[in-house]
């Protein structure tokens, strides 16, 4: 286990060290101490390393992640795992706005609550939130799965494309063109896998599925009010 003191050694040193690991090094487990809410911790990683952040972070933690596993033992500021391509990011606490925004792949697990705009414009990422999510989550979501064990706020899945949303609790309101959909066996299988991989204590059958009504894909003057 390698330990990096962020307060003593600085952010640039941390990210360049982690980014240079290309799978050939045996230094695959890292612990970052004294994060103190700093921004852009462990961004742009591209190797199968294991990074644990011992505390809360600021903006963009684990942004653009590929292959790496990043675990935050605290809460995260806006934009955690933004544009993630692959790998796993686990947040033990809460996440601020736009967690997992524009993510293309990988798994983001938030064990507390996520606030507004979680999964906005998601493009293939899987996001599992153990608590609640705020308003405008998965706005324009294109692909991937957003799983919520708690409740969803206003306008879930507004203007979404083919992303799937599974919510166990209540949904305050659905966004434009987002509807409740039938839960078929293949969805139960997807959920079972995501719940198991994210350490969530819930049964797939307890969830409802939401997704696009596919009415806003192409401009139709009769829908002008909905845009």
């Amino acid at each position: 286990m390698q330990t990096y003191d962020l307060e003593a050694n600085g952010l640039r040193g941390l990210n360049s060290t982690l980014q240079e690991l290309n799978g050939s090094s045996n230094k695959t487990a890292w612990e970052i101490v004294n994060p103190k809410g700093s921004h852009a911790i462990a961004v742009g990683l591209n190797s199968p390393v294991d990074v644990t952040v011992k505390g809360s972070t600021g903006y963009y933690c684990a942004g653009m992640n590929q292959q790496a596993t990043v675990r935050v033992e605290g809460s995260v500021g806006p934009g955690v795992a933004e544009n993630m391509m692959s790998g796993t990011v686990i947040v033990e606490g809460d996440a601020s706005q736009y967690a997992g925004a524009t993510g293309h792949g990988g798994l983001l697990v938030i064990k507390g609550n996520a606030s507004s705009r979680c999964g906005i414009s998601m493009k293939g990422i899987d996001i599992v939130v153990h608590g609640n999510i705020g308003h405008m989550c998965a706005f324009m979501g294109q692909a991937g799965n957003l799983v919520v064990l708690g409740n969803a706020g206003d306008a879930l899945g507004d203007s979404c494309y083919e992303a799937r949303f599974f919510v166990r609790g209540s949904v305050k309101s659905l966004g434009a063109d987002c509807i409740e959909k039938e839960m078929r066996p293949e969805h139960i299988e997807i959920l079972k896998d995501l719940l198991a991989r994210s350490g969530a204590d819930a049964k797939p059958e307890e969830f409802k599925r939401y997704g696009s009504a596919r009415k806003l894909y192409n401009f139709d003057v009769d829908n002008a009010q909905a845009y």
Partner: protein
Amino acid sequence: MCGIVGLFLKDKSLEPKLGDMLTDMLITMTDRGPDSAGIAIYGSEAGGRTKLTVQSDAPEEAFDGLDGALAEALSTDVSIRVIDTHAVLDVPAGKGEEARAALAELRPGMRVMSAGDTIEIYKEVGLPEKVAERFNVRGMSGTHGIGHTRMATESAVTTEGAHPFSTGSDQCLVHNGSLSNHNSLRRKLQRDGVRIESQNDTEVGAAYLTWKMQHGATLGEALEGTLEDLDGFFNFVVGTKDGFGVVRDPIACKPAVMAETDQYVAFGSEYRALVNLPGIEDARVWEPEPATVYFWNH
């Protein structure tokens, strides 16, 4: 972008350290707002006295003999404490408005930053660290305080455009965001006799709260009103003589973190601002909900 910090103490033993803690929080928020900074401190109450904090771009001239001149104009005793470009004038309670009118005559270029029993406001253009140093904010004690680091968007980088804004006795407000209906609301409030001195959008927000409270609203009710009557983006943190409030607009795109322990309630635009507070590891830390009013009273 702007930075906000706020600290409302529950534990009296922390009061001598209020300025010190707020200064550290303020400096941490420098990269959110490096062009100006300001702080409102609610200090101790001197029974039967009102404090007016004034500011001048030519302080030596403006403050020279000001206490004597004001004492003569009001036919009462006045004391003055000069701190860099600011001065705190101490007048008998009930003489605040009269003093304001006299000051406008005696020193036309001087600005009144705040008036009240306990509030003092210090703000200037410059890096937060330099501004805090000029006024020795570290040495200040008090029950609660609010600080702001500004990155201007809606109006010029000037002292009067810096936050906090005070539009009523012992009231202050700081803002991260931008209001879009401030011009029409300013005209409406001015017609109703509310004093608004700049073209800044935030001052209209502060004046709105003052106006609501003048019409009988509590701080909480006034904050509720902002959700209906103000259009735009805002995180507001407000102070009154014994209260501290927070509200975010329904879109809530401006960042906010709060922390509460048995000793204090703290606000920061980012968690970074809170990391050195005592007992933060065990504090309840949360992101305030959109369109939800939070307030605390002593």
